[in-house]
């Protein structure tokens, strides 16, 4: 592509994701193309081989994530991308990667669901699935961009967090952001810091594969480097062998849960717009945040003191930050393209002193600025 060499480029969300993955050091992609994520596979298939990487089209999404986990265990950064139906299939392996502490990046470009749903129309119906889709208590990190340039930044961050914390990281896009092109100055995105997982420095016989460091994260030996350990989805001891010792199991499960939260710095991302003096705060993410930004500005022109809280990190939920932003507001509105998945989470955080209001849509159309403005004005929102 001739455009790839220019500093100012027209960048698509999905293409941004693929190119950022490469910049973050990803050298393995396994996937089963599904709209609206297909361009990620398409671009990876073109860019990975010349960069010395591997691209494999797998038989399904279960195998895709399995292959990525295998690559990562061998020391290679890996990614897969899908949409809701494939994300459902990946849940078992997401849990496996959480428990075996295998870094990997999973992109889910959300389309309308449930089931095969609405190919290829936008939705945000998988936000709770990104937190609780796989069974058991487990850590979850999910990042949610709202522009193609941010897709690029957050894809790099997703790899960095997954390497730093040895855990799967989910990039949650909606169809609009994934398919949207915008003008991006590539110089702004060049040379973002890239992190790589720590490797053991001790002799192979002395390495305890799952003994955590001070940050709660064990260092990771790539398979084939002579360090012998066992990898399993069963509860395991510090060498990776199955155990049902309650003390060991409790310690591991707690550590996994806490390792994301205690490494909060650089993880909790959010954006505030005009929240300082706001009476009404809109909580919105992904493409809906773009509509909300416009609605907030329009409301300000009318003299309504409105503000926007945009979570960029959806999981772990930036609850403390949201509670602080909403402390002085009398109303909080959640705008999302689902039937209220984050509304409950927001209500939990701000407490029962005020009822969360909703501006919801789950019909395959994006929420418009006008609809959010009506909600801010306290008028009935009638979706067309």
């Amino acid at each position, binding site marked *: *592509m*001739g*455009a790839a060499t*220019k500093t*100012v*480029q*027209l960048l698509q969300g999905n293409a941004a994701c693929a190119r950022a993955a490469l910049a973050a050091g990803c050298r393995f992609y396994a996937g089963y193309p599904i*709209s609206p994520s297909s361009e990620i596979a398409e671009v990876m298939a073109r860019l990975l081989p010349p960069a010395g990487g591997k691209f494999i089209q797998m038989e399904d999404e279960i195998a895709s994530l399995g292959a990525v986990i295998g690559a990562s265990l061998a020391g290679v950064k890996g990614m897969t991308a899908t949409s809701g139906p494939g994300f459902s299939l990946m849940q078992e392996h997401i849990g496996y990667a959480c428990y075996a502490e295998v870094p990997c990046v999973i992109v889910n470009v959300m389309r309308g669901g449930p089931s095969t749903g609405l*190919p*290829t*129309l936008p939705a945000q119906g998988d936000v709770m699935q990104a937190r609780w889709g796989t069974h058991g208590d487990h850590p979850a990190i999910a990042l949610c961009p709202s522009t193609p340039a941010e897709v690029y930044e957050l894809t790099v961050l997703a790899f960095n967090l997954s390497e730093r914390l040895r855990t799967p990281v989910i990039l949650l896009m909606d169809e*609009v952001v994934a*398919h*949207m*092109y*915008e*003008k991006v100055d590539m110089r702004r995105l060049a040379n973002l810091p890239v992190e790589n997982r720590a490797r053991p420095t001790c002799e192979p016989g002395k390495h305890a594969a799952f003994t955590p460091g001070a940050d709660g994260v064990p260092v990771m030996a790539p398979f084939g480097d002579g360090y012998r350990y066992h990898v399993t989805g069963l509860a395991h001891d510090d060498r990776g062998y199955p155990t049902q010792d309650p003390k060991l199991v409790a310690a591991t499960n707690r550590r996994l849960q806490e390792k994301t939260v205690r490494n909060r710095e650089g993880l909790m991302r959010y954006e505030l717009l005009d929240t300082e003096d706001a009476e009404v705060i809109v909580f919105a993410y992904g*493409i809906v945040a*773009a*509509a909300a*930004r*416009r609605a907030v*500005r329009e409301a300000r022109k009318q003299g309504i003191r409105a503000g926007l809280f945009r979570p960029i990190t959806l999981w772990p939920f930036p609850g403390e930050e949201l509670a602080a932003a909403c402390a002085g507001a009398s109303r909080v509105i959640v705008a999302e393209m689902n039937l209220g998945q984050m509304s409950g989470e927001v209500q939990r955080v701000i407490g029962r002193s005020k009822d969360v209001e909703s501006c919801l849509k789950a019909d395959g159309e*994006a929420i*418009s*600025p*006008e609809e959010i403005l009506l909600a801010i004005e306290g008028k009935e929102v009638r979706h067309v």
Partner: protein
Amino acid sequence: MERYEVRLSGEGGQGLVLAGAILAEAAGIYGGKFVTYTQSYGPESRGGGCRSDLIISDTEIDYPICAHLDLLLCLTQKSCDTFSSKLKPGGLLIADSKRVTNPPSGPFRVHSVPILQTARQKMGREVAANMVCLGVIAKISGLVTIEALRQAVAARVPKGTEATNLRALEAGYALALEVAPADALCVPAKISA
């Protein structure tokens, strides 16, 4: 130029996603405007509704989805029936004369243009219609220059097809000159060419 909203609509297989990307690149990269471009299409690779939405502006674009169209291009009757109500008063509708047999009337300008027929006759295949569209849009709307479009086409289309696509673009530009009365060909005052 304030926010200018363009929708290219028709059905899957007509090449409107690529046409949108090229128009966005022509306006944004070669024309120096702010631009966003989104698409919507169904699961079918042929048939099924398909649209490309562009917003072009001299200032940063806060919201990338079209709501009040300045320019609507329709290559099927269905897309015209669905979207013509979204045209702004004073907007511009460009409809294919073969597939849009019943163009709407309203407080907007309508140009019925033989886009698909030109693609078939001049290029030998209807699949070239997307490039013909771009030539027509450049001439009738003045939104982008033909030179910016030439550069964007050459950069975006598959290697080896540049010459064919450029010829289709020129055919569209020439077609607009033939079918649109001279006073309808305009460069909007706020757009610097």
